[in-house]
């Protein structure tokens, strides 16, 4: 098993979800996060002061997958989330030893 973690731009989420669905990904876990990197934040103005917001909103996707699918899924995310502009995000893959479906207790492949 592998865990694919992707950090992407919020407005790309819909496209990525659809692409993964088409590929056959049955489930994923998503969260709203803040990104820090080359892409700079914006400036806000409040009575007599300006503030630089260092962070930019990102969407974080976690997908547990079969070893075999990992590369394809990384490829799909990179393809669909890409805008070519700074801040498109990162995708990384890490090992998972076992995964269980809470509802049934099924393990690994059959748990996905």
């Amino acid at each position, binding site marked *: 098993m592998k865990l694919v973690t992707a950090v992407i731009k919020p407005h790309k*989420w*819909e496209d990525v979800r659809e692409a993964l669905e088409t590929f056959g990904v049955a489930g994923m876990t998503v969260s709203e996060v803040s990104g820090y990197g080359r892409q700079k934040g914006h400036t806000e103005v409040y009575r007599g002061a300006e503030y630089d917001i260092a962070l930019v*909103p990102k*969407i974080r996707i976690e997908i547990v997958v079969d070893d075999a699918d990992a590369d394809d899924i990384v490829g799909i995310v990179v393809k669909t989330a890409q805008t070519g502009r700074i801040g498109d995000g990162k995708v990384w893959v890490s090992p998972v030893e076992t995964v269980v479906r809470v509802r049934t207790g099924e393990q690994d492949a059959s748990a996905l």
Partner: protein
Amino acid sequence: MDGYYAFMLVATAFVLMMTVPALALFYGGMSRSKSVLNMMMMSYVAAAIVGILYVAVGWSMGFGGDGTFFANPFELLWLDGVTTDTYIGVMFQMTFAIITAALISGAVADRLKFSAWVVFVPLWSLIVYFPMAHMVFSCTEDSLICGRIGAQDYAGGTAVHINAGIAALVLVLLLGKRIGWPREQMRPHNLTLTMLGAGLLWMGWYGFNVGSIVFAGEEGEAFTERFMSETGRTFANTTLATMAAILGWLLVERLIHKKATSLGAASGIVAGLVAITPAAGAVNLSGAVAIGLVAGGVCAWAVGLKYKLGYDDSLDVVGVHLVGGVVGTVLIGVFSTAEGAGGVDGLLYGGGFGSLADQTLGVVVAVVYSGILTAVIAVAIKYTMGLRLDEEDEVNGIDLVAHGESAYDLHSGTSGGGSSVLAASTAPATTTSKTEGASA
């Protein structure tokens, strides 16, 4: 004369504003965010339903003649024969009918079927409120509470607050506790709304109490003098009692919980206003402060009772309106002065126990009448269409289930610029198709 009339135009708008949006905000803020819209909707639809019903038969049942419990419902049906230059009096009374029904909604948060509310409200107004308004406000010879018992109730301690409070208690006993109550925390989801609501209620209440002046046919000078002296008294009493109640509530809270809360301040405002409602014309400044202090302190303690006795009066309609209403109505028997609107001296001013007895009897009648008939209505609904939401719907939240909405979608704001993708991701196809259907 036209000055008084001008004030009544504003006062009536104020009292309507007490329900829409003030009470809805006060209650909505205390609800959980998955049921705030339903809580507000209960007030808004109550306004629509009761308002129209009041014009249809409510006014006639209240003021269409004499009677112990109510007047002839058909005498002034749909304001037949009422001239438009007296419409404002009808509208003013209508706003009282509206808020009384709406007050009940605070007790049934999260779990009452919306359809059940839509059926309960008109039935309850017809069977419970309209008669109660006759008994108290028409003050005809035979009218039970005012005419016969002779209990003082300036603006509705019995007809409005005790009435709504006891109805709320009966309803929650038949409805049962929310899933997880009291084990699970069910804290207010947005206290700024509750504070806002309390503030608007306070402003509106000047329409409620001060606008409740009744003239004895004075004219010219005498009319103006009466207008100024009595409204001066009721305005000042309403103000001081509320301030004293805030302090009373916060003090007791400080003692019990070691914290003075904003929810306590907001609740203290309402408790004080409730308690001074019946007494606004009867007492002097010191009486007003005393009633406010007692009401604030007693209610602050009373809202804890539900945990002891185990009834889920979700937003404390019983603890604030029933208890506060009783405190104010009964204490008239103690603090009333002969210079007041009622012209009766209370216990403290040498009037003996007479007034105290009348006031207590008035309370008992209100509790019994409203309690029994509310039970009848609620039972009827419970065993026909049912009162209660399914368990799963209650967990998912009534806003979603009954209204297909959720109150907030704030992500893009907090994350500064992103659009709320997660809360909002939709299956486009469906959207469009459904939409087509929608606009078809």
